[in-house]
């Protein structure tokens, strides 16, 4: 018995996803940058030449090493109180990625919960939740974040809470829309007939099918969170000195713009590269995960 049947197993979902994702050069570049950032963030204590808050009084506003007056002890130069810029940037990657993680986790968790409630219960609960989200959307995001920080007091934790609240409506709306389209499908009806309870329907049956747009939004949410936190830090309403947060570093550096371009240039560049990487990857994920948008 010779069975030389052609075994054409379909590729697993992960492989299929990867083959789509791989075609987008920008997305792969974004992923690469994010991987490097992760390594830098985790390894900052070992990679950084100096502790981030250590002040070298003999080396104030030293230019980058390759310029006149630079010193390879401080590859990217020092700031106005003699702290090594490179070390602060490396530790800043830690702060920024942490901000992204916490904000996205908070807003994703709350957004999914509220979206599921709105989508499953409809009626009064739905109206209440969605009207509340409309109100949050009516305010420009940075303004709302500033208002919340004004109440809670300026600190990194409060800035993260504020940003999580500000981005919440996007997750709620996405979840609700996805739930509404899933709930009409036969498999939901079938499992209801089979006696599945409400919680099972919500979290086991429906939620996994709503995840694709949420994953994309969460990736883009990372970049928004990092950008907004940097903006709040820059306005003095976010992380407080001497935290090596990139936006806060920029605010400190502003007054030295005429004398020391490097203290202004590098932190901003770090923000731009990080945000760009997450946006690139988010776009790639959207193309790979959302069949409707596939080219």
């Amino acid at each position: 018995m010779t069975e030389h049947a052609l075994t054409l197993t379909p590729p697993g979902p992960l492989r299929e996803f990867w083959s789509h994702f791989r075609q987008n050069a920008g997305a792969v570049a974004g992923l690469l940058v994010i991987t490097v950032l992760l390594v830098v963030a985790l390894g900052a204590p070992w990679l950084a030449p100096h502790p981030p808050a250590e002040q070298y009084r003999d080396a104030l506003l030293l230019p980058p090493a390759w310029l006149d007056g630079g010193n390879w002890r401080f590859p990217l130069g020092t700031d106005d109180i003699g702290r090594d810029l490179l070390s602060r940037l490396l530790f800043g990657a830690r702060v920024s990625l942490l901000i992204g993680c916490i904000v996205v986790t908070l807003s994703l968790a709350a957004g999914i919960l509220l979206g599921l409630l709105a989508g499953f219960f409809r009626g009064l609960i739905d109206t209440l939740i969605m009207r509340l989200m409309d109100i949050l959307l009516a305010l420009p995001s940075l303004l709302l974040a500033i208002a919340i920080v004004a109440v809670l007091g300026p600190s990194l934790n409060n800035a993260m809470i504020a940003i999580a609240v500000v981005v919440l409506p996007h997750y709620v709306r996405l979840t609700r829309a996805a739930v509404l389209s899933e709930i009409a499908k036969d498999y939901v009806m079938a499992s209801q007939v089979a006696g599945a309870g409400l919680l099972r329907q919500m979290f086991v049956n429906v939620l996994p099918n709503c995840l694709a747009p949420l994953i994309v939004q969460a990736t883009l949410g990372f970049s928004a969170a990092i950008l907004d936190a940097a903006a709040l830090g820059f306005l003095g309403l976010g992380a407080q000195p001497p935290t090596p947060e990139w936006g806060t570093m920029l605010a400190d550096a502003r007054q030295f713009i005429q004398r020391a371009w490097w203290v202004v240039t590098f932190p901003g560049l770090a923000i731009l590269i990080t945000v760009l990487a997450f946006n690139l990857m988010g776009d790639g994920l959207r193309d790979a995960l959302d069949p409707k948008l596939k080219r």
Partner: protein
Amino acid sequence: MLLFLLRRLGLLVPTFLGVTAIAFALIHLIPGDPLELLAGERGIDPERHARMLHELGFDQPLWRQYLDYIGAVVQGNLGTSLITRQPVLDEFMTLFPATLELSLAAMLFAVLLGLPAGILAAVKRGTVLDHTVIGISLTGYSMPIFWWALLLILLFSVQLGWTPVSGRIAVEFYIEPVTGLLLIDTLLAGDYEAFRSAVRHLILPAIVLGTIPLAVIARMTRSALLEVIREDYIRVARAKGLSPLRVIGVHALRNALIPVVTVIGLQVGTLLAGAILTETLFAWPGIGKWLIDSINRRDYPAVQGGILLVASVVMLVNLLVDLLYGLINPRIRHAH
């Protein structure tokens, strides 16, 4: 159309009430005694404290205070600034033209560059030009604009000395405000030197504020046009032998513009949020800088009123965009 308008206005009422609730909550959520701010460092004796609490209505139940607040807001009374002792509404009205001028200039910059860039990218799809536009717009979209502002100041103000670093106009000019928009007022006064000064002050902030909208508009125009170009009626237009310019410029663009108009409208919120950063950086005397200054001075009535007013402006503009949308696209109007 009237029904559409009424329905849309009806939706606005609960949202507005919600925003007033947020603005109201702002003052009441701040921990501590509300009078402490008014009292300053000297403090108040207990008897006066009780009397002031009563006078300001802080001894009433919260729902009563909220109703009073709404009543006052509807009558245009948004409280008095703790610092300047001016009505908040008056302060806002004095400063708003500066923000309006900056936002209009930024939007003009974004549309004038963004639309052609998006159209070119779509028409030359897959070429170097297309990739350049995509790359630049993605970078612009990811830009921390406060850093971008610093870079531009570094290059154009510090290195080249082309533009001033801050303010709306050089101090030696005094222009009687008519519209509040300096570009128009200087022209009305016939003072061309002042006009040039105002333009030089406006350019950098407008570029900074317009960067993100520019990126969004270019991206949206490109993808909307690519979508439309695939439609049958465009193929028909081409088959009829119309010139490419006419096919793109008249037939395709008209439909492609619908989502672009929406996106432009949605950018108003982005602009006002961006104005907070841009105005702070360029010392532009508008509502963004005023809000941040008020927060730093703990002038809570000003913050409260400012947030309410900015939110109202955003809601009004969104309403206008929706109406405009209904006008351009009959399908929306008759959808419900």
